[in-house]
């Protein structure tokens, strides 16, 4: 593999920005945001430069590596801290730095009234650096460092306004649930090291052939656990909704476009493991299918615009995970959907932020309405993202989502039919809840509070939205034209035999569009024809109630994990107090008691001491006399 000396700058630039801003403190308040944005942008340009170098080489010579330093050296076991940029990583690098830079620009204006804007930018830069390390690491251990880094940045940014206790709790919830997933990743690394003796991607890939299926399956399942944690997939999905406590640019960058897709990256990167472990691969598909329905159903009931988008993110990542679980045919489509989703979902989140900006940070969609006239640019960019997520041709989602649906159908057998129907149904529900968001926010009559004065956001905010909207329109076509992305990524995955086609692409597109049309129509009938109540009605069906409570995910976690955990803690505390503290206090009490008892001897009278000495001496002599007799 070729080596490069410039890869490190991708990470070093934003990392330096973060360090400077955090160390310089208040001194950098005036220029901190500009420095952070500039460094993020320069990292993007380094990425573009790397892409241009890559394009100039033949397909097999495209990956490059850079060794930074020898990290761990124990006997014959060596791990270098080294970076690797290949066809898959570069997609992520450009997405992270590109979307990241746009969101930096957006945040300059969005956060301009916040006294802590510099700290916010420091954390954003830290996130970019960690995320780049995640996708550039050449071994699972290097990836793990980035993996933890993005978790930290996510925690810091969700709790950015931690003066509100609910927000601080949300950040803790996200961190703790992520840790559960991280355990999976560390277990996967340990199993890989125990069975294969190596943790680098290339080493593991080479060792797959002579490793037992049981070991591969357990590694695969552990990697899946890691992916569910970071990507908010079932059963570790509950943190994503609460993560919306963070500032909206954070939701757009971390909890829509980049960090939550790390699980998809991990599974795609570990394709050689999942290809050799069908059980684990099947579980991946099941997790993806459950989550895509789960998120979609939650999305239909949410009145908070950010939470509706978060549920949608969960659902769309379910599509990606499902695609990645379909094996070699699906990896490229999962990545394609990931890239297009990065554009349209980030755009829509920024749009939501723009709406909130104009509406005094109101997030309840029932208090919006008729904003189209007041925020034309936001409406246009959000609308383009909306068309893209629906999968209306020729917008981005049409190419990426239809490919996943088509691939799901063509897996063959009952599995194919089930997966195909789930993905189709998901598309229909997606159309329903996204149309609901559009109608509630932008059309109908205004239901604002009296003090709301909706206005369009400044250009620093709408420019990134516009660029992302352009991406939402064009990225699907550009990536799928002539199978561009599939061919680009093909050296990474094993070649797959063509499946017999169950349904032709045209039929799949027709079905998907029909489902979308039905979803849109239902939403129109339900929300456009009738008046929308400004306060959420309470006399709703049991299904709506359950969906409003996130399908009882928190209740479930509290009943199954929290309550027994609290009982366990209580028992342990009691045991600690009774047994361990009891033993320590008992020793003390014995010493104290015997001391008190002996104190009576100390009368202070010399004569009694003398008498005691005499008695002692006599007793001693008597004892010696008895013994020697």
């Amino acid at each position, binding site marked *: 593999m070729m080596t490069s000396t410039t890869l490190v700058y991708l990470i070093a630039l934003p990392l330096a920005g973060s360090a400077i801003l955090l160390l310089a403190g208040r001194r950098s308040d005036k220029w901190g945001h500009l420095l952070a944005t500039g460094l993020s942008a320069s990292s993007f340009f380094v990425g573009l430069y790397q892409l241009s170098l890559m394009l100039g080489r033949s397909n097999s010579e495209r990956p490059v590596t850079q060794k930074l330093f020898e990290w761990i050296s124990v006997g014959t076991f060596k791990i270098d801290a080294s970076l690797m940029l290949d066809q898959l990583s570069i997609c992520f690098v450009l997405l992270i730095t590109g979307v990241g830079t746009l969101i930096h620009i957006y945040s300059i204006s969005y956060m301009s009234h916040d006294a802590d804007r510099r700290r916010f930018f420091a954390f954003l830069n830290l996130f970019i650096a960690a995320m780049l390390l995640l996708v550039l690491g050449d071994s699972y251990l290097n990836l793990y460092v980035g993996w933890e880094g993005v978790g930290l940045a996510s925690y810091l940014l969700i709790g950015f306004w931690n003066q509100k206790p609910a927000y601080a709790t949300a950040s803790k919830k996200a961190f703790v649930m992520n840790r559960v997933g991280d355990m999976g990743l560390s277990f996967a690394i340990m199993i890989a090291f125990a069975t294969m003796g190596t943790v680098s991607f290339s080493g593991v890939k080479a060792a797959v052939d002579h490793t037992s299926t049981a070991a591969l399956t357990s590694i695969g399942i552990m990697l899946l656990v890691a992916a569910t944690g970071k990507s908010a997939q079932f059963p570790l999905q509950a943190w994503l909704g609460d993560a919306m406590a963070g500032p909206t640019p954070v939701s757009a960058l971390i909890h829509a476009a980049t960090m939550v897709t790390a699980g998809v990256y991990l599974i795609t990167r570990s394709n050689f493991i999942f290809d050799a472990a069908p059980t684990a691969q099947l579980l991946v598909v099941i997790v993806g299918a459950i989550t895509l329905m789960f998120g979609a159903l939650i999305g239909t009931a949410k009145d908070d615009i950010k939470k509706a988008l978060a549920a949608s993110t969960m659902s769309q990542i379910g599509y990606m995970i499902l695609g990645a679980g379909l094996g070699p045919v699906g990896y490229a489509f999962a990545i394609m959907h990931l890239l297009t989703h990065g554009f349209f979902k980030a755009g829509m989140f920024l749009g939501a932020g723009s709406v909130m900006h104009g509406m005094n940070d109101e997030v309840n969609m029932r208090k919006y309405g008729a904003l189209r006239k007041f925020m034309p640019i936001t409406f246009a960019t959000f609308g383009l993202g909306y068309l893209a997520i629906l999968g209306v041709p020729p917008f981005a989602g049409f190419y990426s989502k239809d490919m996943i649906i088509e691939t799901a159908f063509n897996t063959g057998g009952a599995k194919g039919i089930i997966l195909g129907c789930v993905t189709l149904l998901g598309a229909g529900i997606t159309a329903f809840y996204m149309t609901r968001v559009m109608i509630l926010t932008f059309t109908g009559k205004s239901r604002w509070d009296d003090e709301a004065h909706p206005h369009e956001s400044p250009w620093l905010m709408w420019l990134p939205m516009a660029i992302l909207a352009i991406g939402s329109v064009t990225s699907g076509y550009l990536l799928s034209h002539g199978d561009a992305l599939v061919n680009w990524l093909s050296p990474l995955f094993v070649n797959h035999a063509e499946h017999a086609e169950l349904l032709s692409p045209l039929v799949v597109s027709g079905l998907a569009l029909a489902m979308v049309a039905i979803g849109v129509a239902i939403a129109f009938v339900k929300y456009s024809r009738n008046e929308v109540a400004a306060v959420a009605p309470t006399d709703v069906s049991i299904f709506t109630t359950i969906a409003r409570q996130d399908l009882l995910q928190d209740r479930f976690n509290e009943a199954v994990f929290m309550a027994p955990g609290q009982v366990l803690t209580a028992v342990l505390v009691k045991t600690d107090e009774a047994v361990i503290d009891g033993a320590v206090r008992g020793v003390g009490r014995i010493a104290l008691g015997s001391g008190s008892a002996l104190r009576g001897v100390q009368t202070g009278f*010399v004569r009694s001491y*003398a008498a005691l000495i005499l008695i002692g001496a006599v007793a001693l002599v008597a004892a010696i006399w008895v013994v020697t007799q």
Partner: protein
Amino acid sequence: MNAANYLYLSALLFTIGAVGVVIRRNAIVVFMCIELMLNAANLSFVTFSRINGDLNGQVIAFFTMVVAACEVVVGLAIIVTIYRSRRSASIDDASLLKR
């Protein structure tokens, strides 16, 4: 003369000393009783030296005398100081550390 008689005398003197230490309150008398016990021990040492026919006992008797001399110096100094400050030589009065 039978050497055992010296030992009986020694035991008698020691008992008188010990009883005196325990029952008397006057510090000077207690002090003298201690001297009596020391010299009773000395008498035993010398007697055993005679019985066994070596000089170890006699040597130790000299040591005891040295110790006794030092003890007298220190002890009398303490007693005089206490008497000066408390106008009393009763050892039961000197139990202030207890309180």
